[in-house]
């Protein structure tokens, strides 16, 4: 699989480390609600289709990326910096 890193360009997936569902992982709850944390830590959808996931370009610019990938075809339609999720800006 090839991922077009917004900084480094297109690279093979062996340069990256994958973590999983980007929406779940970056939505850390605040407060004391253990249920909410339980959802955050353990519950993941495993869908067949477009999936936003976190990939870390470990052998490149060390940026966490949000990769939108079709899990059925491995076709990647979008790659953005995880830090550009609306809040703040790139480091």
């Amino acid at each position, binding site marked *: *699989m*090839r991922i077009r890193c917004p900084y480094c360009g*297109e690279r*093979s997936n062996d340069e990256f*480390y994958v*973590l999983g569902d980007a929406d779940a*992982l*970056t939505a*850390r709850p*605040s407060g*004391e*609600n*253990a249920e909410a*944390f*339980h959802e*955050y*830590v*353990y519950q993941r959808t495993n869908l067949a289709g477009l999936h936003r996931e*976190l990939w*870390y370009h*470990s052998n490149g610019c*060390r*940026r*966490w990326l949000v990769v939108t990938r079709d899990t059925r075809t*491995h*076709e990647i339609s979008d790659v953005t*910096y*995880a*830090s*550009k*999720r609306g*809040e*703040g*800006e*790139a*480091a």
Partner: protein
Amino acid sequence: MSSAGRLPTGGRIDRARPIKFSFDGRSMSGFAGDTLASALIANGVSLVGRSFKYHRPRGILSAGSEEPNALVEMRAGARREPNTRATSVELFDGLQAQSQNRWPSLGFDILALNGLVGGFLSAGFYYKTFMWPAAFWEKVYEPLIRRAAGLGRSAGAEDPDHYEKSHAHCDVLVIGGGPAGLMAALTAARSGARVILADEDFLPGGRLNAERQEIDGAAGSIWAATVAAELSSMPNVRLMRRTTVFGVYDGSTYAALERVNDHVAVPPPFQPRQRMWRIYARRSILAAGALERPLVFANNDRPGVMLAGAVRSYINRFAVTPGQRLAVFTCCDDGWQAAIDAAAAGISIEAVIDSRAEASPALGGELGKRDVRIFRGAEVIRAVGSRGLQAIEVRDASGRISSILCDALAMSGGWSPITHLTSHLGGRPVWNESLPAFVPGTLPSGMSVVGAANGAMALARSLAGGRDAGASAARDFGRSASDAPLPKADDEPATVRALWHVSGGRGPAFVDFQNDVTAKDVGLASREGYRSVELLKRYTTLGMATDQGKTSNVNGLAILASELAQPIATVGTTLNRPPFTPVSIGALAGHHRGKDFRATRLSPLHEWAKTHGAVFIESGAWLRASWFPRPGEKDWLESASREVRAVRSAVGLTDVSTLGKIDIQGPDAGTLLDRVYCNTFSTLAVGKARYGVMLREDGFVMDDGTTSRLATDHFVMTTTTANAVGIMRHLEFCHQGLWPGLDVQMTSISEQWAQMAIAGPKSRETLARIVDRQHDISDAAFPYLTAREITILGGTRARLFRISYSGELAYELAVPAGVGNAVAAAIMEAGTDLGIQPYGLEAMGIMRIEKGHVAGSEINGQTTARDLGLGKMMSKKKDYIGRVLAERPALAAPDRWGLVGLKPVDWTTRIRAGAHLIPIGAATTTANDLGYVTSVAFSPSLERWIGLGLISGGASKHGTRVRLVDLLRGSDIEAEVCDPVFYDPKGERLHG
């Protein structure tokens, strides 16, 4: 030389360059340009191997990489390589080949009895027969089956050759160097596109080298050579011969194996034997050609029965003939060409048998005049002969059976496009009834298919298809392909009427030659309910092993379809997966074997440790100094104990450079640290160090280490060696993924700094001798947990941390990596009269167990901060990762396994990590398991064995006794549970 099968003239071989080789120890000779198979035929060899299950004599079926029969062991000694297809081995001087799967000899094989007892090993035989008793499998059945049914032997020695990988990028990858591929590559290349043409053969041209068709009025092989020469001369083209594209992967990535030096006895110095390529291609053009199908009739596996196209390859390309009296059996127009070419080469044609009553009278051309017997609407029902073909039995249109003497039979069941690479990403080939064959279905993105691979089974169409695909790819890159005229060629007649199975002959009719699967087996499997083509494959082994059913799959599933009375399109086909042809493990490993299996990391103090005679141990990617033996010491324990005593009584120096070191700066650095550590760092004073514990979000401990504050907005973190990479990634995730608004800058500085611990009551005195005068390191000026930037040895920048892992007065000194060895040497020199000694990982481990410090054995992903006695560090005043879930009731339960010390009641008894903790007097059962021993050491300070462990109830069990039961090593030792800090429990020494 013997040239029993060699034709006097012709062929694309170099008769001026004879080549010596041996087969089963017999010296033979061939020519440059031969394959092993063609050279064997030239030497009159028709029996080449024995079959997998029945040990039936087998010859050569094909002239390419699809060969199921002619598998040999190549070379000898450490280079011996089993299951090599003689049909694709390029002949070289000194080649040694042996037949395989025969005992005691190729000509006489005792296990051929398997073949005499009929259905002995029929479909599903293994599953049905060797079922009981289960214990027999390992000792009786399996060895028996392995001896009876097997392929060649591996070398059993380390491969002396080296292999490597490489990468290539191109606009257009053309797969296959036949007419369509050459034309596609030429068209794309002339437009200026970057082109790679990969061809598995050593001579580009594909079928053009095997046929007598003409292009532009000359032999097709001449056109191929001209095009190949032009491609070779172009700077934008990489022409890769002897290279098989064997896999297609996501993102237009292709894997190819280049057999760089398979065609020589020993690779020239410094050259690899094989090179594996990863090719990134924006477009690919598949021009892999087609495979001819055998016909399925009784004894169709007899040596001398050969594919018609292969017969033409041997006659036209290699100038050898598989026989002197040839018969042809075909269900398509193409088969006739074998008779025509053979006749032209002076070989006697005994008969042409075409199963089609309607076969065109024009076929065969001049053959009629030569008095050749021609049968239309007839079938060969049986081959006669055992180690070689002697005759065939023909059933003519009227049903009359006659016998025809011949020593070679060319057969053609039509051609199947090589669609394999189109399926590697899940595309299913589709059935085309008019060919009849499977043609490519959904294609991998960026791929187009041309020529025979796309079902265009004729030369002019192939050339046109190649040109169009090349031009289209060029246009995709905005390049204009010049309208070079298409070379002139004719389309050969190519009608086919399927003939899947000829019944009525006595003897097994093989579908899959390599796996000895017969038409009867396919029928039996279907009657037993294995009606899916995938199940058929697993049950009968049809299509398995090294050839992956290249010559058998279509026939097999057509027979299944006919058994099920369903159309072939409905039955479908198994999906091809990489690799297209076998790939050696060596090529997949490439450079990465032995010491290069993975990268090894060496500490900046490596040379220093080596100078002091360190014994190194692999620890993750690192080589770490484990202990420093001295003459007369009998084992590691004696050396490590001596090192511990030196630290506890004087001073020692050890390398801690492998710890992860992370520089954290910015106004929000303290905030980030507060969020990732369970304890607080924003309040840490500048110039101070603090021990920190990080939790995972699920509440368990992730890592620990010391973080120091060098300036208000500047911290330096250390992580454990094992987690260095993971913690950096975690911190980047926390920053970029969770809190991108924080103004924090993090950089790994693990490589930049050499770090060493100087520990022991005389450590300050030692250090004072190298620290530059202006830096006061007295206890008053530099108390415990001080961290400062200083200079040493007259201006060398350093960072000094007064922290202690050993429990002694101790410091960690970081210096730039380049001077690490020199600084360590200077400290050793400075401390000589104080008794300084180097100490290693083992001594460090002993001292941390004496002090009850946790390490990887305790921070094992299943322990919480409370379990490890670190619960008080968990701040109640701030949020941090892991805070909420660490409070889950189960993680705070009083019976959780908590950290304790363990002392064997008999102090001399050695205890072992991994032993389970069982109550005294209770049975040794899982239900009674209270925990286990995590770390042990012989404490030179206490002169006894001690251990750390996790026990249900933790500290509440202090003072009780348990058994340490190690069923693996057979020990059962009584021990007292105690506080984990065995040495200097009040911690007075580190304040010394």
